């Protein structure tokens, strides 16, 4: 079974491709990158040891083209493919294609992905493994009148979820019958576009739950352990934006129960590799099985920061057929970690994606700060892919320290040229209830009903007004000073600003000739 991995094709882009390429280098493994048309100069395509063009910009013609990726893997003599998350990460057909092509797929077996990736099948598996399920859940496909009666039976609000889903795509909360059919249609469209599978189902919408997940590792020999939990309740559009570990309300007893439940379903499904078992936790600390994500999660660094375990490295080891090198008792949670996902979005405008060029980019640094980014200064944010551009993960000896350090690091983070969620993350860190650890998945809507996320917005606006007036004033003065017939020699030409204007006017002249 033991087979040394020497070269890995990273079938992804953005920050996760960068993360895996780094993991390869750390493990002494060569990396192969792939890039689409618009990712020609992307950061991941600069970092990998070898890179290959995979196709036009739309993901359906590039990062999702299975045959092409296998062909590149063969051509580059890669012995394994790491799919990252999204794209082909939870595609059983692709895992199968790797298996039949003699290439190691870094993840569970294709049958396991098929089984757990279908949320309906996963629920059956959870029942077999004795896991508690969300109450009143039922499922259906496309017959609208039937769906209406099922929704009625479950009781509103209901949650529409994509059977092939993940990352909040194809998910809708429906408050009443009127909005049901429109929401289902829209969810089907979104699910079809995102996963190529439009099946959706209904679940009882548990009000104010916390979203807590367990990271697991399982080897090929039936051993499985859990690496503690991650609290992922800070969400917008049902998609996580801020995660932390440990969960502020976790108790050793609850962690043991949830961890063992996670290990049970992993063993029941003969899971191999790194995975995540997601749960909802209600205010009385009851927990319900949600789904198993058969991939490396976006938020895996939070666990890496508190356990000191490099999960990507463990994925390589497991894929090589090695046994887990540590036992459950060896896993320790040390201190506290918080991850802020940095999205190219405008939080004040309902988190609308913001595309364009990153004009200025500077990451925070200093003690306890880790940034996994897929961008650098000058990067274009294309419309074709997910708007997440980076993750900032901060470690502190305890939760308070981690929050203060996160605020510090967010203040240092500079991105201009497009809107990001940096200010939003600061607003969350400064929020009284977040600081108390008292929050659930409704946090963003509840705490920021006006969608105003900057605590000092009036101060910032005033500063912006002053700077804009100064900018205009200095610009006008310079023009006046230099105009013929006016007094020359006024003001200073030494400051950086004047030189800027001079260089601009010189450029303009040069350009017009």
């Amino acid at each position: 079974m033991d087979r040394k991995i020497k070269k890995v094709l990273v079938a992804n882009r953005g920050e996760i491709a960068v993360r895996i390429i780094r993991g390869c280098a750390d493990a002494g493994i060569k990396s192969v990158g792939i890039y689409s048309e618009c990712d020609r100069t992307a950061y991941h395509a600069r970092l990998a040891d070898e890179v290959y063009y995979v196709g036009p910009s739309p993901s359906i013609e590039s990062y999702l083209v299975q045959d092409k990726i296998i062909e590149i893997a063969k051509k580059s003599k890669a012995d394994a493919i790491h799919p990252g998350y999204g794209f082909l990460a939870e595609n059983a057909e692709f895992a199968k294609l790797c298996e039949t092509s003699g290439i190691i797929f870094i993840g569970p077996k294709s049958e396991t992905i098929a089984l757990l990736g279908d949320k309906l099948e996963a629920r059956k598996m959870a029942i077999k493994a004795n896991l508690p399920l969300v109450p009143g859940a039922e499922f259906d496909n496309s017959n609208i009148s039937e769906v209406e009666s099922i929704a009625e039976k479950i009781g509103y609000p209901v949650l529409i979820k994509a059977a092939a889903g993940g990352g909040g795509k194809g998910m809708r909360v429906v408050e009443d019958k009127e909005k049901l059919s429109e929401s289902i249609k829209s969810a089907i469209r979104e699910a079809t576009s995102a996963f190529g599978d439009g099946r959706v189902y209904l679940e009882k919408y548990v009000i104010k739950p916390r979203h807590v997940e367990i990271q697991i590792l399982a080897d090929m020999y039936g051993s499985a352990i859990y690496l503690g939990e991650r609290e992922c309740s800070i969400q917008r559009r049902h998609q996580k934006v801020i995660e932390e570990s440990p969960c502020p309300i976790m108790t050793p007893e609850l962690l043991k129960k949830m961890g063992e439940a996670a290990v049970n379903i992993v063993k029941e499904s003969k899971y191999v590799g790194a995975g995540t078992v997601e749960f909802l936790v209600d205010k009385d600390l009851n927990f319900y099985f949600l789904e198993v994500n058969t991939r490396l999660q976006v938020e895996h660094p939070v666990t890496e920061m508190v356990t000191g375990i490099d999960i990507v490295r463990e994925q390589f080891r497991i894929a090589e057929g090695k046994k887990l090198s540590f036992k459950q008792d060896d896993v320790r949670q040390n201190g506290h970690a918080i991850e802020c996902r940095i999205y190219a979005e405008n939080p004040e405008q309902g988190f609308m994606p913001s595309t364009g060029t990153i004009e200025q980019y500077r990451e925070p640094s200093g003690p306890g700060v880790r940034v996994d980014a897929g961008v650098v200064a000058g990067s274009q944010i294309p419309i074709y892919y997910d708007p997440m551009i980076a993750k900032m993960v901060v470690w502190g000896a305890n939760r308070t320290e981690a929050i203060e350090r996160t605020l510090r690091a967010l203040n240092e983070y500079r991105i201009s040229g497009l809107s990001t969620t940096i200010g939003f993350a600061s607003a969350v860190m400064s929020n009284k209830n977040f600081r108390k650890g008292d929050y659930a998945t409704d946090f963003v809507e509840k705490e920021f009903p006006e969608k105003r996320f900057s605590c000092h917005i009036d101060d910032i606006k005033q500063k912006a007004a002053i700077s804009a007036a100064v900018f205009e004033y200095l610009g006008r003065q310079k023009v006046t000073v230099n105009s013929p017939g006016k007094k020359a020699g006024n003001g200073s030409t030494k400051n950086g600003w004047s030189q800027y204007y001079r260089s601009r006017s010189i450029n303009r002249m040069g350009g017009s000739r």
Partner: protein
Amino acid sequence: MSDIKERFLVTIDNTEYDLNLSRQGESCFVELNGDKYEVSFDKLSGQNFLFRLNENSSEINITKNNGTISMFLDGSEMDVKVEPYSLAELRKKVGVSSEGKGVKIVVAPMPGLVLQAEVKIGDEVKKGDSLIIVEAMKMENIIKATSAGTVKAIFVSPGQAVDKNDKLIEFE
């Protein structure tokens, strides 16, 4: 050294700021609401500047386009309108609104792919009604009416790629 004073009206969102600016030698001063600040601008790179307001430094990214300044400051993106005060006063007296009456043209807020139009020509819409669904970054974004009106023209069709600020819909 001469001291050239100028008065400006700055508008951000709907907030107006009345500012008096002056220079004395190397220094530049701003008066706002009775407070006086010493300010300076230094170029960092490209359109990035270091702006000093008394003892406080901020990095600002500034882009000028058609009379408005778009800036990134302290993690916020803002569109700022700067006018000489006298001009702003004149504009107000004449009664010309810089904003226009209602939104006549709806433009794409970001680049993306038009999925479908939720309205047709002649439809009357209320504020908040869905107009057009644009997909960007694998997400559906519903463009909603910001005021009531009657649809006069629809400039896009499903499957069409649009750029930021491309016209989507015109109201009568």
